């Protein structure tokens, strides 16, 4: 029972993934397909933010722009020039990782809000640059459709870039692999070192853990995941412009991760499911959805700063302690207090 209770949050997290996979197999209605695909893409983007902020404790405002960098790179190389999708994706990852290292080296010495501003400055610079570049259509934008290749399983056949399942498939696989990888990293020395620098930088340094090094690694990893999300997002929208990666989108991302629970592996998945499910499937709030979720963000910060999963794991831990008198479980420690800045 207790082992099950401990694993419950992570087990619940796989539900949207499995549901998404089922939808491909069973072929839900177009709206469901649309909603699930978007949830998966946003969950990836949220995971990217979660790696750098939830695990690394650095509030990066550059994740959307890094994703945009990926989307534009693939749109140019694959869409315009016809390069093989996987090569284009590799190039996009290379671009974003290089950018993240440049940003990281410049920004990771800074702490707190200076880091946030520095990443915001880089993000604004990147988007402003795109908005002045003729080749990518300046502020108007450019087509982001391309040929991503095909996958055949027995008699089933998918165009990977198709909105009718191909992108969904690609998203399910990518998100699952990323989440599995994070689960692995959580248990390694690297993962623990990263969490240690988040919890107490001074203590971690005194134990021989170099905070900057681990944060740079986390930031680079988050850039890779942001590229996956950005590329899928662009491919799904079929069209990208700088305004698709602006402040409103950044706020959406932050809202999702905070609601789901920063620092929890499945927090962004839960957040994306709630946000996209409510706004896209139930059309909740109509054009006021943005304002409503702004209010929801404030309420969450006041009553449950670690999000829904943070609150749940608190409850589970308390129950465990009452039932068995055992201390909190080992494994990746959930954020103890409010998330760090």
């Amino acid at each position, binding site marked *: 029972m207790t082992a099950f209770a401990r694993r419950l949050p992570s087990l619940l997290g796989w539900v949207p993934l499995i549901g998404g996979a089922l939808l491909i197999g069973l072929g839900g209605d177009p709206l469901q397909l649309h909603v699930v695909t978007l949830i998966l893409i946003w969950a990836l983007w949220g995971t990217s933010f979660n790696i750098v902020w939830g695990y690394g404790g650095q509030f990066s405002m550059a994740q959307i722009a890094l994703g945009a960098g990926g989307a534009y790179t693939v749109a140019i190389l694959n869409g315009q020039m016809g390069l093989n999708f996987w090569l284009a994706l590799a190039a996009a990852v290379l671009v974003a990782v290089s950018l993240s290292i440049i940003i990281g080296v410049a920004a990771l010495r800074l702490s707190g809000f200076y880091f946030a*501003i*520095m990443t915001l*400055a880089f993000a604004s610079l990147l988007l402003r640059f795109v908005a002045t570049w003729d080749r990518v259509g300046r502020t108007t934008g450019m087509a982001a459709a391309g040929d991503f290749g095909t996958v055949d399983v027995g008699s089933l056949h998918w165009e990977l870039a198709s909105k009718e399942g191909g992108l969904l498939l690609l998203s399910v696989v990518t998100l699952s692999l990323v989440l599995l990888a994070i689960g692995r990293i959580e248990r390694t020395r690297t993962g623990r070192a990263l969490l240690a620098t988040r919890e107490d930088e001074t203590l971690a340094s005194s134990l021989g853990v170099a905070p900057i090094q681990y944060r740079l690694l986390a930031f680079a990893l988050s850039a890779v995941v942001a590229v996956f999300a950005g590329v899928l997002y662009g491919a799904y929208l079929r069209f990208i412009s700088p305004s698709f990666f602006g402040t409103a989108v950044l706020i959406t991302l932050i809202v999702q991760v905070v609601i789901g629970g920063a620092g929890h592996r499945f927090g962004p998945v839960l957040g994306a499911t709630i946000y996209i499910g409510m706004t896209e499937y139930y059309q909740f709030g109509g054009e006021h959805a943005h304002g409503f979720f*702004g209010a929801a963000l*404030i309420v969450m910060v006041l009553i449950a700063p670690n999000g829904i999963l943070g609150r749940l794991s608190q409850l589970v831990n308390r129950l465990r302690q009452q039932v068995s008198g055992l201390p909190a479980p080992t494994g990746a420690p959930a954020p103890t207090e409010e998330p760090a800045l």
Partner: protein
Amino acid sequence: MTQFTQAVINGLMLASVYALVALGLTLVFGLLDIVNFAHGQMLLAGSYLVFALVDDGQSYWLALAIAVVAVAALGLVVDATLFSRVRRSPISGLLISIGLIAILTDVFHTIWGPNGQTFPTPVRKVFRLGDVTIGGNRMLVVATAIAVMLLLAGFLRFTRLGKALRATAESPEAAVLMGIPVERIRNLSFAVGAALSGLAGGLLAAVFPVEPSGGEGVLIKGFIVLVLGGAGSPLGAVMAAVLLGIIESLGITYWSSAGADLIAFTMLIVVLFLRPTGLVPVTRDVTL
């Protein structure tokens, strides 16, 4: 040469607005350790209120006064009800201000729609200095901003309340021991910061159209000025605002508006990298 002088004068107009925004940010950051990302939306609230009142037939000056008071009240309310609950956690304050951006943007969008709003300008006169022309509205922005900054400096330096404010910024613990009601001083400084942004918004509305996305650019410029000036230093903020305003205006004149932004963002990155404490050395004299 005429073009250059013209650009510098336009730059001073931008600088006045940036200085007001950055002073508000500085006050809030210095006293509350909060980076208020909703500062740009508070500025927009000022712009929209002035627009609505003038559109309704009120005089510009009355509208400006009402807008400043209303935005100050808004600042007081959000600080007392929201930010005061998370004083120990700067990240929570930051997140709350991000939530406020979404709410306020929605409100503006709903009431005034997505398009730019303009109203008849308060000053019709155009001044000429040789070949250089200066719009009366731009003069008004600069003059009002300078007057308000002098008033603010006087308030901080000479009044009891201003001294209490500076004492709280320097050491909240010591201020409490001296009997200063620190929590109320914090509310006050948030309200004053909001009032400054409301004023900046009201002034800006006399020169540029008011639109829902207008807060964003000014906010980032405000941050640039805040960092360049060394956070927590009003004098540094004003000097940095002048520098940024003129550089931006020259950039617009000789390159493009996007180019000017590229310069501004690059400047921020370089300064943050080389001198995170700002361009002006922060000494006791120039801090709050």
